[in-house]
């Protein structure tokens, strides 16, 4: 039973980090293909946080950010988010819409829709990697979009997860930082497996329940 995440063994945490690593690797490849930029990524961290501290998964909770969110259904339900700090999102919109650097200064309907589609593709490639690795079916629901302070986005999402019973006392998230060094862009990829989804992942990786 995974009623408490702290019961996870070091090996299990390593396995989750590896899931994050491979997933984010695929996602970075997708970003590189879409933007024609080389993309780097950090080793994922597996964070177990109580609800009051959940927003601390982001380094700068008050900084403005753009977030694309997808709920994941199927064998291993979970929640995937791509969070881009505002500067990075604007620069990314430039690139996606074929504009010169710095031309996008606000996010109107067109920019939002481009970023949303971008997030959709990136998250889907993350899920495809997880599917290839574990054999579990993972279906993404249509994306939702938000721009606000990172803390606002995360707390609103967390409220929804508490309301639907996904988060009880604490939550586990796998966080990977992706970065593009020449343009100084960064983004954060978060995956929050539901307790049931986490169990399925671990069973698929370790061959038991």
């Amino acid at each position: 039973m995974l009623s408490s995440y702290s019961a996870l063994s070091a090996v299990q945490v390593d396995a989750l980090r590896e899931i994050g690593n491979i997933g984010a690797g695929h996602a970075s490849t997708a970003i590189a293909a879409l933007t024609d930029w080389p993309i780097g990524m950090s080793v994922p961290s597996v964070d177990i946080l109580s609800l009051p501290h959940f927003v601390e998964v982001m380094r700068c909770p008050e900084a403005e950010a753009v977030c694309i969110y997808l709920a994941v259904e199927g064998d291993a339900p979970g929640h995937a988010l791509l969070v881009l700090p505002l500067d990075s999102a604007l620069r990314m919109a430039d690139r996606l819409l074929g504009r010169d650097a710095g031309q996008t200064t606000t996010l109107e309907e067109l920019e939002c829709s481009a970023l949303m589609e971008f997030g959709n593709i990136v998250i889907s490639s993350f899920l495809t990697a997880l599917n290839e690795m574990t054999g579990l079916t993972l279906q993404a629901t249509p994306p939702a979009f938000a721009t606000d302070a990172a803390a606002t986005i995360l707390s609103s999402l967390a409220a929804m997860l508490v309301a639907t019973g996904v988060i009880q006392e604490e939550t586990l998230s796998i966080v990977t930082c992706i970065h593009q060094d020449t343009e100084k862009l960064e983004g954060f990829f978060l995956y929050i497996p539901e307790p049931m989804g986490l169990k399925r992942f671990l069973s698929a990786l370790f061959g038991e329940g």
Partner: protein
Amino acid sequence: MQEKIVVGMGEVKLCRSENSLLIALGLGSCVGVCIYDPALCLAGMAHVVLPSSTGKEEEEDARYADIAVPLLIKRMQQEGSLRSGMRVALAGGGQIFKGFGAVTKLDIGPRNAEAVQKQLTTMGLPIVAADLGGNVGRTLLLYTNGTVAVRLPGAQERVLAYLGAVNRVEATLSSNQLLRKAA
């Protein structure tokens, strides 16, 4: 040096030391409840996540409006506050995700705002000021001098209410009355 006390999701915190403030970072669908007692310079804040605890009767689970509001009032009373001296300001309850499906259907923000207001009315506390709804996140600050401020992403802090200063006379009166009662 000003001490910032962060009130995280589902927390209730009090503070009365000078040069301190209570802060709830980036309230989206959550609602921040500030209660201030000018007579004691006592500040309290709850960071409400959901409207109702239906079925989950845990006395101190301050994630829910119906538990958090009475709990905050109780904690203030334990510190010597009278309900009649409490002044309230609210912020939050917005809708952040523009999207589809389950995300917006839940409608948590407006329901939180409504639940908190209802709970305060039930407990007989008038709301001095509120900044609720819309689709923007707010950082809420309550200083121990009673000033309540709201900060929107990328903007300057703006005062929502002075729960202390304006009614200093009234506060002095009520504390004098208290003294008289005590004597």
